[in-house]
Structures are given as C-alpha cells and as structure tokens.
C-alpha cells in the first residue's frame, strides 16, 4: 500500500470504468451527475446487472433443493459466489462465508448466536467510539438482556483510535468489536494490532469491514480476526446481501441464528438437528441472485486489482483534501486524519455554521450527491460535538472532475449563505 500522491495511475482508466456504470452518465438539470455517496451505497457495473439478469433468464430456481438441471445450475452459481467471496478476503474455506441480508444482520447474527452462548452478566464487550450503530445497538440490546458491560475505545484529535489504554479496556473482555474504517472520519484502524491485543487478552474479535473490504485488499488470516462483516451494496454488488466470515471452530460451536428450512439436518416432532456451516446460519431461501451479483462484483474488483483501487483512492483523497481546503478556504472543516494514507476516501465536511442539510441541498442543485446527517454514528458525532456533517465518499469511478465539482458547489453554498 503506497502513501504517495499521484493524480492518476496507469492501470486505472477512470473514463473506461465510468462507461461500465450507466447510472453515472445521466445528466441532472444539465449537469454531469457527481456521485459522492458510495460510502452509503455504491453504484454497480453492467457486469453485475448482467450476471443477475442472466441467472434469472437462464438458471433460476431455488438452491440446495431441486435435482433438475436448472436447479443445479442455480445452486452452483450461488456456491460459486461463496467461493469468490472467500477468496477475495483470504478466507481459508468457502464454508466460513455466511450470506446474510447485510452487514447489520451479520453483526446481529454474531451477537445473538455467539453472544448468547458466550456472554454472561459481569462480562465486558469493547467497542470504539467510531462504530456505526450497526455495531453498537445489537450489543446494547444483548447487554440489556444479559447485563454485561460495554467499554469504549476513544479517538485522538486527529481522529485516530487512541489505543493508549487498550490493555486496560480489554482486561477481562470477551469480545472486541471494531470498525476497520470509520464511515464518518475515514480513519483506518490497525486491524492486525487490535486483533493481536484482543487475542492476548482472550477476547474474540469482530471487525466491521463495511468500509474497508470494498476499498482495499483484505486478508482475514493476516488480520488475525475471528469474525468480519461487510455488505454487498457498498462494493458494487446489489442490496440485500451481506457477508459474515468467521473462523470455522467458532462457527461450528455456535448455535443457529434463525430457524427454518435450509438450516437443518433433521426435524422431528420432538426437535431438530441443525445443519453444519454455512447452512446452519442460512435459514430460508437465501438472496440467490444477489449472491450471484456479489460474485460478479468481486470479479470486477479483482479485475481492477484491490491494490490499484486503494492507490487510486489514496491519491484522489489527497487531491480532495488539498483542493477543497484551497478552494473553499477557512470556513471549511474536514474531519478525520490529515494524512491520506491513514484514511479512506470518506470526507465529512462542515461549512462554518451552515447545517449539513442546507449544504447538501445547494450541492444537489449542482448535481453533486453527498449525504447529510449523523451517518448512523451518533456517539461519534456527540464526541466530535457536531449534529450533522455533509459526507462525500469516493470510489473507483470518481475522478478529479468530481472533486472540482464538489469544491465549486461548496463555494456556491458558502456564498449563498453568505459566510
């Protein structure tokens, strides 16, 4: 991973990439659409749409049930997607990949299944102040039921995780659930060091990798993680599919999450025997076409190369930090680490006292799509002392023109509200 600042990479042809995303070619009020909300949900290339379309047109049936050829093709397509995802994140086995509805469901799965089996009153779960509500509320719900303590790792002035007292926080903790990259600040965490610290303390780790898996190489074994979760819709895949990866021993020992068809070996009037992983955690008809779409998204990203994706985003983030500060001036605050290599392409912006909603409204007039609000991270927002920010988030199809358009629109917003 390079921290060097480049304006373009020879392997990264953005004009070509943009052609693969039909939605980006639309004109809004005579202006080129500037999509800067991939942190919330990315767009998807035609290859993903085609893969799903192809399944529905030629090979759709329910999976793991039929003996006829079409059903077998559907099952193979679904399981192929599982293998592609496994390989993409360096998972030792495809059976360790559980398809869920989204990352939120994956975290709830771990909280309900692993949490209920392993947490007791008096235990501690450690989170960071940067977590998305998806990695807070499931633990709070369980804490209310079981009565364990939730401890919080703080951040420093630059938005980096403050690990100075991590050993104290981890002492006696059973679970350390943390983000790999903040969806508000863009801060990257040192996942490997955090997993090592947790392991030393005897705590299991869950990494919310929603914002990192789409944007940089991932190797779950190298990280030393126990569980990681992410969502398909933030990585060029469709909505309705998420991923839980867990170490096989942990998954094997966990009780099922949802009960129903597809997750059993046997059912009698007296009870049931659950299937092995991954089936045990995939009750009911799974998101079949969505899995196939996610598989195609993984293919697309592999084609680009995740190193190259990361390089592109570091250089574009560096360009954005520089350009926005220069063009808009003092009135603009950009939250998060100042060093592009320490962060992802998520820029939370504040324009003097103009509220994020009002900024975003003006930006929309310029066909610039950003997200106002608390970004489902209210504890972090409270810590930062802001109610809402306008968040611009970058991906593979964004270029310096998008950043220039954002800068220009921010200047218009500044002038419109005369600050």
């Amino acid at each position, binding site marked *: 991973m390079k921290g060097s600042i480049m304006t373009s990479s020879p392997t990264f042809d953005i004009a070509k990439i943009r052609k693969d995303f039909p939605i980006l070619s639309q004109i809004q009020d005579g202006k080129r659409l500037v999509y800067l909300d991939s942190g919330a949900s990315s767009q998807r290339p035609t290859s993903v749409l085609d893969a799903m379309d192809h399944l529905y047109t030629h090979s759709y049936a329910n999976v793991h049930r039929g003996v006829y050829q079409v059903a077998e093709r559907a099952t193979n397509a679904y399981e192929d997607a599982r293998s592609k995802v496994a390989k993409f994140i360096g998972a030792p086995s495809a059976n360790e990949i559980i398809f869920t509805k989204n990352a939120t469901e994956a975290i709830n799965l771990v909280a309900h299944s692993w949490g209920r089996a392993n947490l007791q009153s008096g235990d501690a779960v450690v989170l960071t102040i940067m977590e998305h509500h998806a990695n807070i509320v499931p633990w709070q719900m369980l804490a209310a039921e079981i009565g364990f303590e939730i401890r919080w790792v703080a951040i420093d002035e630059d938005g980096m995780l403050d690990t100075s007292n991590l050993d104290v926080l981890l002492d006696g903790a059973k679970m350390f659930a943390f983000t790999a990259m903040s969806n508000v600040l863009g801060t990257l965490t040192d996942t490997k060091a955090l997993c090592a610290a947790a392991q030393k303390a005897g705590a299991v780790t869950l990494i919310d990798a929603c914002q990192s898996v789409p944007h940089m190489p991932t190797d779950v074994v190298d990280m030393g993680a126990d569980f990681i979760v992410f969502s398909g819709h933030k990585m060029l895949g469709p909505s309705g599919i998420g991923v839980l990866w867990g170490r096989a021993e942990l998954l094997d020992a966990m009780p099922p999450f949802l009960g129903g068809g597809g997750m059993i070996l046997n059912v009698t009037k007296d009870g049931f025997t659950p299937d092995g992983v991954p089936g045990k955690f995939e009750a009911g008809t799974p998101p079949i076409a969505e899995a196939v779409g996610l598989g195609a998204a993984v293919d697309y990203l592999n084609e680009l190369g995740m190193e190259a994706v990361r390089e592109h985003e570091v250089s574009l983030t560096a360009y954005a930090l520089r350009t926005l500060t220069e063009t808009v001036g003092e009135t603009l605050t950009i939250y998060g680490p100042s060093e592009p290599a320490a962060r992802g392409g998520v820029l939370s912006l504040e324009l003097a006292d*103009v*509220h994020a*909603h009002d900024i975003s*409204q*003006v930006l929309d007039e310029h066909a610039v799509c950003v997200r106002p*609000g608390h970004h489902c991270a209210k504890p972090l*927002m409270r810590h930062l002392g802001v*109610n809402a920010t306008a968040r611009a988030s970058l991906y593979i199809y964004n270029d310096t023109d998008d950043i220039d358009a954002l800068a220009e629109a921010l200047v218009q917003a500044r002038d419109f509200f005369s600050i």
Partner: protein
Amino acid sequence: MSGLEELYKEIIIDHYRSPRNKGELPPPATRTEGFNPLCGDEIVIYIDVDSNGVLSDIKIGGQGCSISQSSASMMSAAVKGKTVAEAQEIIGGFKAMMSVHGDALGDPASEATAEPEVDLGDLEALKGVVKFPVRIKCATLSWNTLTQAIDEATA
C-alpha cells in the same frame, strides 16, 4: 438557483440566524424532545400553559438545519400568548400547508393543493419546502413536538 431561493426565503434565513424564543424554561414548564432520526436534528420545546389555557411562554432548544430551526422560531412567535385552542388551529393550518394532497410524504411531483384556512403570517415563507419532500420532516419536527408538548401540558 431559483429553486433554492424559493426554499431559502430571506425571512427563513433571518429566523435561522436570529432565532426567536431560544432557551429553556424552568420546571414546572413542560419539556418535550423531538428527534429527526434521519438527520440527527434535535429539538427541545418548553411551554407554560396557564390556568386560563393560554400558552403563556415558549422556549426552543436544540440544533438543526435552517428549515427546522426557522420553522421552530416562527412557530414559537406565532403561538406565544395564544390559547391552546388557537395554537392548535395554527398547528393544523401549518400542517395542512406542509401536506401534499393530505400526505406529507406523498408523490414529490404533485403540487401542494391544500390551502391553509388560517392566516399563517411569516410562516407562509415555508411553503416552498413542499417542493423538497425530504425537507418536509425538517419543517414539521418542531410542530409535531409542540403538539406532543401541548398534549402533555394539558393532560
């Protein structure tokens, strides 16, 4: 920028910059909180209702965008000193103005048809919000919170 100017009327910006009746009231005033979970806007409304059923004082706290803050400010000016019944009439009139075919989150393409029966004065400036359906929630947050506060104060 005609669309924007329609939304951000001068009087809206004025109320946003210099909000009226900002602050808190001590107990036994009724204190009610309202949240817009989508954007994190928070509002706190304090009201005093005297023995004659008059909304004798109102204060507004919290944070939010220009639309939610100016709406709250104008609302406070409009209802202060009014009877609960009069205030409720104003609330009804404002909500009617904010609704698109009676549905506050209806089809964004349709024009507002409901004409308020009450004279809303400055509040009419917020009419442009109806054209920006996402922002209707910003404009109505304080009003829904006031309704709740009145219910609590008169319960």
